[in-house]
């Protein structure tokens, strides 16, 4: 069995804003294995983005710790695909994809090689000199994907990357993601609020409870790879998994609503 890549121990995060405390995450303990595609799902506001930011080191935990097992000091430990608008508007598609490589001061030829490669893989070659304002939402997220993959991070962090897309584009990008990911199986932490998406992409699905986010349960997806939308959709095992996750989430959301309406009363 693969060893642990990310070890999260008793992690809590509290935000203090305008003298008001928000507990975003509470006592999360979780190990994510090397090469694992780990989907994280939970109702909105339960701290999913916060968890990714903590793993990326963009924020510091209030309590507990996160340990990343870094193997190769020449590779960045993490790269994030942001929820929306993560593409820098003042850079062309090409400059965006090359951004991480430039920041790491790679040799020029290597930057060109990798940028060209990922532009091609994501079907962006024809748009390389375009600015993001000229692109559709799906194209922008392709840029975001290419930029993250290009730096060859040990861990890929994705924060609901396709949630703002229409369904057809979402399917296309999910397949593209699976294809690129399968070339070289990196550890992925993938946040989503879509059960279907979690089942299609994940090896395991981590369920978080409504605010404050606590670890509710972990499901293993019993479906073989390579996966395709058509086969996953018709597989009875995915239907069972869908139901069990949905029941869980429903009780969470209802619980949260009950709590808030009780406190409003």
């Amino acid at each position, binding site marked *: 069995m693969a060893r642990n890549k990310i070890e999260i121990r008793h992690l809590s995060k509290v935000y203090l804003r305008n003298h008001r405390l928000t507990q975003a995450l509470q006592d999360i303990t979780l190990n994510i294995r090397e090469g694992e595609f780990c989907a994280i799902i939970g109702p909105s506001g339960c701290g999913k983005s916060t968890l990714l930011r903590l793993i990326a080191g963009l924020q510091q935990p209030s309590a507990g710790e996160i340990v990343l097992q870094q193997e190769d000091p020449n590779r960045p430990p993490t790269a*994030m695909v942001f929820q929306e608008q993560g593409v820098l508007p003042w850079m062309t598609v090409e400059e965006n994809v090359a951004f991480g490589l430039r920041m790491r001061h790679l040799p020029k030829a290597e930057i060109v090689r990798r940028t060209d490669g990922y532009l091609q893989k994501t079907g962006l070659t024809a748009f390389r000199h375009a600015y993001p304002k000229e692109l559709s939402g799906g194209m922008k997220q392709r840029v975001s994907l290419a930029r993250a993959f290009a*730096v060859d991070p040990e861990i890929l962090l994705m924060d609901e990357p396709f949630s703002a897309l229409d369904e057809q584009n979402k399917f296309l990008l999910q397949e593209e993601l699976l294809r690129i990911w399968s070339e070289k199986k990196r550890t992925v932490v993938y946040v989503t609020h879509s059960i279907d998406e979690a089942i299609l992409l994940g090896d395991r699905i981590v369920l978080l409870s409504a605010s404050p986010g606590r670890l509710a349960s972990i499901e293993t997806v019993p479906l073989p790879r390579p996966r395709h939308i058509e086969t996953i959709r018709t597989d009875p095992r995915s239907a069972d998994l869908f139901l069990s996750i949905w029941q869980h989430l429903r009780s969470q959301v209802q619980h949260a609503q009950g709590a808030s309406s009780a406190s409003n009363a």
Partner: protein
Amino acid sequence: MLKTNPLQPALQKEAEAQPNRQQERLSRAEALRERQERHLQLALTLAAPLLLLGIWEALSEMGILDPRFFPPPSRILMALWQMLLEGSLWQHVRISLIRILLGFLLGSVPGILVGLAIGLWKPVRALLSPLIAVLMPIPTMALVPLIMILFGIGELSKWVTIATSVFFPVAINTAAGVASIDAVYLEVARNFGASRLAFFTRIALPGALPVLFEGLQMGEAIALLTIVAAEMVAANSGIGYLIWSSYKTFQIPQMFVGLLAIAILGYVFSLLLRMLGRQLTRWR
């Protein structure tokens, strides 16, 4: 009807070519309409000032406007021609131009750097914001005596005067521009390992550019204001001096030439700045 026509193949070809030709005709008509509209607008744009000048000329010739204070435009044009021939106009314009350009650079470059620093780093903001808030409301002209004490009565003090007036709007707008950058872009930069310098040059500067350019436009307008005022009170050359000395020696046509010169200078300057700004923010 066409069945037996020997020309049928040709006609058919014609019919196939029809949509293309029709499109061409339509686009030509559309282009013509657009051109006509443009010409009409240009005519209207030119009509207003020409009409005004015509009325002025007539009123002044008829003595309804006092020609001593409002000489007819033809006299002003003659004065302009004469000053061009003598080379005196160019001398005044050149010296003002140098003062404005140098002063503008001396004020806007530090303004941009300080603005970026204020926008990016909280300690710098805490250190400098109150200082700027207190200094900004002082009209630069009120500082002219102090500037002359510090920098003498030569050209340097003119540059410093303009630089001072340009610095504040540029610094404040640059800081506001940095503040307007979406937080997610800062996270992107950190996540992909941007160095401090890269943060400055690849995120803060381009992100702030649209608002920054509004500051440069304001700075340009204020620079024009300041240079004329400064040349009126503390110089013996330049457009401001030309206007003031012409007035005092009652050479009113020359005074109007000075006004014309500053108007054209300001217009060209702001046009160039706008073009540069548009070029640099094509991504918007």
